[in-house]
């Protein structure tokens, strides 16, 4: 009985905080928009029979007719993919440096990596607006150094979105890669050199393959939230930045079309299920390999 109760707790959590909201959103996505509170029909007040009879896939059909939506999905995928790659390129060397650092430095370095989490995410994104704007710190610095004459337009472009995503999600990339590299026996690298590898070859043939699980985990941890990212594209991106998170927000709050917004959210969730399942499989494989 006690065991049953213990197992029930996470399931209860899942039902309350994931399944129930999901079912509500799914129901709304199958409803019609209405000038009412809440702004859709039918509702439970109409009785179960009418409710079920009036649900339909109209909103999903609508999503396929307006090319804004699939373009936004594709653009989000592209931005999420590119930012994941950029985060990997920035994060791997940092994780590698941390793993190679003397023991007494590691705790400090780890601290430095997670330190940004101690301030609000929103404040940090606003800080980037201050850095990247035309009169911002970055442009002032570059002009002062004489590298450029005119300020660069970075804020409100996709570049600013990439910078924002890489900055925000960097720790999620660094930590799993660092964990993988930290577990690596230093003598493997020496064995590779002993058998004729240069340092570079040893890195590609031994270090990279053996930190693969960390790389994969880090990429998923960045890609999954980046795909639905809303705050960064709306604050740092411009009118040309098309991301599904932004579209979703506009449907909800500007158009007050909750049913279409819900349909957008359901599709986003379905797209995310694939990388999430792949991520889970990677984690499971890693755990099995360690046993």
């Amino acid at each position, binding site marked *: 009985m006690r065991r049953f109760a213990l197992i029930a707790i996470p399931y209860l959590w899942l039902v309350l905080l994931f399944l129930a909201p999901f079912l509500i959103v799914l129901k709304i996505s199958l409803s019609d928009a209405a000038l009412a509170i809440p702004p859709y029909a039918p509702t439970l007040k109409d009785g179960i029979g009418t409710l079920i009879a009036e649900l339909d896939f109209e909103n999903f059909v609508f999503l396929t007719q307006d090319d804004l939506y699939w373009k936004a999905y594709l653009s989000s995928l592209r931005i999420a993919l590119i930012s994941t790659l950029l985060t990997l390129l920035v994060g791997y060397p940092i994780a590698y440096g941390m793993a190679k650092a003397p023991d007494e430095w590691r705790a400090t370095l780890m601290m430095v990596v997670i330190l940004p989490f101690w301030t609000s995410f929103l404040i940090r994104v606003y800080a980037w607006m201050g850095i990247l704007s035309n009169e911002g710190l970055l442009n002032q610095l570059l002009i002062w150094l004489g590298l450029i004459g005119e300020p660069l337009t970075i804020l409100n472009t996709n570049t600013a979105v990439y910078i924002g995503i890489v900055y925000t999600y960097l720790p999620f990339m660094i930590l799993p890669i660092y964990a993988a590299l930290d577990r690596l026996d230093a003598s*493997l690298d020496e064995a590779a050199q002993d058998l004729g590898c240069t340092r570079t070859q040893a890195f590609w043939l031994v270090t990279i393959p053996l930190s693969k699980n960390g790389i994969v985990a880090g990429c998923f941890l960045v890609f999954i939230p980046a795909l639905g990212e809303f705050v960064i594209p709306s604050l740092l991106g411009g009118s040309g930045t098309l991301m599904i998170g932004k579209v979703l927000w506009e449907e909800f709050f500007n158009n007050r079309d909750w049913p279409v917004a819900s349909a957008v959210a359901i599709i986003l969730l379905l797209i995310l299920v694939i990388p999430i399942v792949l991520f889970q499989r990677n984690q499971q494989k890693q755990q099995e390999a360690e046993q």
Partner: protein
Amino acid sequence: MPRVSQTVFAPWDDPTEKPLIRFQNVTKRFGTFVAIDDLTLDIYEREFFALLGPSGCGKTTMMRMLAGFETISEGKIELAGQDIGHVPPNERAVNMMFQSYALFPHLSVWDNIAFGLKRDRKSKAEIDARVDEMLKLVRLEKFARRKPHQISGGQRQRVALARSLAKAPKLLLLDEPLGALDKKLRQDTQFELMDIQETTGTTFVIVTHDQEEAMTVASRVAVMDEGRIMQVATPAAIYEHPNSVYVADFIGDVNIISGQTNASGTDTYRLSWAEGQQPVTATSDITFSEGQKAHLAIRPEKIRISTDQPVDADNKVQGKVLDIAYLGNLSTYHVELPGGQVIKAQTANTRRIARRDITWEDPVWISWNATAGVMLAE
């Protein structure tokens, strides 16, 4: 297979022979800590050379300097007449079998062995042939496709050996290769190692802290202590003629009798070792001055034990049996002398234990000849 050969293998006694490895006044410091202290040593081709010493005496450091993973603070190391101080590890004709084996966990047994060969840009056929040859040498043909975590510790050890031998190095370094194996497997593997060393003709330098292992496999043994080499000699010479109390004590069991010397005839000394006791007589190759402090080292098996007073022994002392260690094939008697010193005497158990005629608290005589021990100055 025991080492049977017409001429004795002893290149170290031949002044015309060029050593394969030459340590010349090599010092290695980690910060201010001196790990290797002004060490000079020659190792010859086809030798099976053992570095023996307590943990932390610098054995691994010496290996790592040979492999190229540690820089040399002072002095130089030559390999086949060439200074290798600035040659990176991947360009040395030296391979190392790591203490932890360091097998690549993401590669199969076959790919682990092929790893070094692939770096040499050999043809596929050549690589295939060599890997198969190595698998056969270590008898692992059936496990070629397995990953390292799918085989046993002993098999992993053999994969590591095959991998380090695959490139046919001039010199193979083995850092405590058998440390992780249980005793029975260790002994089998020691003979296998000797076999492989003989068939491949590779020079082996092996690190061990197990003196029995060093004595079994090596052509010569270097006994180390705190970054210095105390003695380099063949196993038999190091056992029979240790040059210091440290070496005598490190290799096997030994009794040390300390005292003052008095010459008595050529190369023969009398050692006064305790008040009111007859001095003992011993021969020595090194000369001692009158009244100099000296130590007589005698192996337990060179000391006879009897209940009756022996008639024809050079030295004899009466004592009392304190303890008997029964080792199956041998028994070691701990005999307390009147001055309190305990001497160990070992005899083969040729009789059944029930009929053993010496037991605890028995008064006994121990005796040995003048040539039985070695006299040491330090």
